[in-house]
């Protein structure tokens, strides 16, 4: 259980940092802002501590004491800033969204919330079953991710085993966010307790759900967020993944966080955009530090954001904002570059290269094999056809219908293009290497739901007169006033 202490300190540091930065303040309802900060704080704290651990490890200073000291120093510094800001601005009001941005809540959101919590409790009990049955996770967990965490957590120079060319079948060049974070906790605990990777997986699953629900509540409506949360529970393959202890769920989290933050930047006031975009870039950088697919995502997402912003805002603003996004990506990308220099090339896709992909594309059996894998894994994504996410989405699309406000168009275009291009990239590399499409779908599932529910008309709009539907264009946030509070009551 000692290993849970560094996990908690990392999450706490991230949450305090996000609470200080308040990236989404004034964009939507307070509960959604807090939930988003919580969801982002947890994953961003894990990402940051994993990066710091790698630097400490490579410089030969990673010990239980230095890890705890680093965490302590980070928390103390954040607490000091917190208290300084509170003393400096004791009466500072929390910005609340302008009236036009506040969606009149759907009367039966409480039903959706209650059902989501019920489904979540059932799923969490299922995850407890899965963790009890396979505490070491499934194949890639003990053959790749956790075995490398053991190397990194070992004494002396054993961390070099994680990137050793002798590690022929365990991909020594795979990025180390998950392995590094688990190793960091094991290093502090002085053992290899399975509770650490299990808890890390659970934290990422819950953080992904929190970011999805909160981001949609801020961007579209509370009901959209809750409906998306319920749709997550239909993804049988996705639900099975966290307790496999692979990197796909952390990757899905960072994909979602990056696009959600970029989407919020289009809705936010101009002064808040750089912060949101820097954080979106940081999430994309963390994705690259999580898995090689994250490198593809970082490149695709950067291009999609720049193109969408150019299309909707013009060249100069797009260029300026894209630089903030790129700046946020730097920490993750620099570490990946460093790792790739230290480790031998072992990724099957890189080894197969353009030649392998071209050969695969030229062979009809290979193309058919890939399409069959896509169809089979897509079909198996829901436990039954009736409870398949696409079935639920089809019914919701037929009843709610698509209606995309002008202010959300850049976000939807950027998100949809990112999903499409990243998936296209997976298909192309699958022609030359292997085809775990169940995991590819899981990586993109939360982001896909974000895009779909951005475009779907919220329940609130169905039940309100057309004129009362909220404008989603950004207005100046107003300070909370007594009068406003009482009028809401």
């Amino acid at each position, binding site marked *: 259980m000692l290993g849970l202490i560094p996990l908690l300190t990392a999450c706490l540091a991230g949450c305090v940092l996000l609470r200080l930065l308040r990236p989404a303040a004034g964009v939507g309802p307070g509960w959604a802002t807090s939930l988003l900060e919580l969801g982002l704080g947890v994953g961003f704290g894990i990402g940051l501590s994993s990066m710091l651990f790698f630097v400490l490890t490579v410089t030969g200073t990673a010990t239980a004491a230095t890890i705890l000291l680093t965490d302590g120093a980070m928390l103390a510094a954040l607490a000091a800033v917190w208290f300084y800001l509170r003393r400096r601005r004791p009466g500072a009001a929390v910005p609340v969204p302008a009236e036009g941005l506040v969606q009149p809540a759907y009367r039966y959101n409480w039903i959706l919330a209650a059902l989501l919590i019920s489904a979540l409790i059932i799923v969490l009990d299922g995850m407890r079953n899965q963790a009890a049955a396979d505490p070491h996770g499934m194949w890639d967990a003990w053959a790749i991710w956790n*075995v490398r965490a*053991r190397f990194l957590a070992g004494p002396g120079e054993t961390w070099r085993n994680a990137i050793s060319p002798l590690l022929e079948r365990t991909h020594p060049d795979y990025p180390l966010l998950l392995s590094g974070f688990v190793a960091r906790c094991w290093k502090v605990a002085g053992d290899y307790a399975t509770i650490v990777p299990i808890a890390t997986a659970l934290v990422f699953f819950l953080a992904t759900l929190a970011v999805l629900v909160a981001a949609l509540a801020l961007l579209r409506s509370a009901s959209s967020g809750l409906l998306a949360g319920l749709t997550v*529970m239909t993804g049988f393959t996705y639900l099975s993944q966290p307790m496999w202890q692979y990197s796909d769920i952390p990757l899905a989290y960072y994909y979602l966080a990056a696009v959600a933050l970029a989407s919020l930047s289009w809705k936010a006031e101009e002064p808040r955009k750089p912060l949101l975009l820097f954080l979106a870039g940081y999430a994309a950088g963390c994705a690259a530090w999580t898995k090689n697919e994250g490198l593809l995502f970082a490149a695709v997402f950067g291009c999609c954001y720049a193109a969408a912003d150019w299309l909707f805002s013009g060249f100069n603003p797009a260029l300026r904002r894209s630089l903030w996004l790129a700046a946020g990506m730097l920490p993750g990308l620099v570490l990946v570059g460093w790792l790739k220099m230290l480790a031998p090339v072992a990724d099957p896709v890189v080894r197969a290269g353009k030649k392998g992909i071209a050969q695969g594309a030229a062979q009809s059996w290979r193309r058919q094999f890939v399409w069959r894998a896509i169809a089979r894994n897509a079909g198996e994504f829901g436990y039954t056809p009736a409870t398949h996410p696409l079935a639920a989405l089809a019914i919701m699309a037929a009843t709610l219908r698509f209606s995309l406000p002008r202010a959300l168009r850049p976000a939807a275009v950027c998100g949809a293009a990112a999903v499409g291009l990243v998936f296209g990239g997976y298909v192309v590399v699958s022609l030359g290497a292997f085809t775990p499409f169940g995991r590819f779908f899981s990586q993109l599932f939360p982001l896909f739901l974000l895009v779909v529910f951005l475009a779907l008309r919220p329940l609130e709009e169905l039940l309100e007169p057309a004129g009362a539907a909220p404008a989603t264009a950004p207005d100046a946030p107003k300070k909370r006033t007594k009068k406003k509070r009482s009028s809401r009551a």
Partner: protein
Amino acid sequence: MRQGGQWRAWTALAAASLAGLAGAVFYWAHTSRILREEPDAYKIAEQQARLAGVVEMLPADATVGYLSDVPFGKADGQVYFFVAQYVLAPRLLVEKKPERRPRWVLGNFLKRPDIEQIEKEHGVKLVRSFGRGVYLFERTP
């Protein structure tokens, strides 16, 4: 209120709720069956017990050669190798090849091996047999 809006809203709500709850229940039922019928699919706990003696004996920074009668080309061979690698980590387990001469070599066998022949063939000497097919060899000078 828009015409038909309420009906459509309730349909969407019902679809998401039923599918979400059913998905959660199916997932729970599936995991309950796994826990009941096939826990620890790759027998990692069993391998940990088999290899515990080797873990105790070898230094944490050792590079260990690997010999087995289950070829790596078979799925079982891969499971044996990767689970042994996981259990022995942070020690590094490497397949025994002529150009590699690690001091320690782990023997992981399903059938009783001919120790003399292995010693002669690979230039190693048996240090200890841990039972259940687990042997530790040391390279001869």
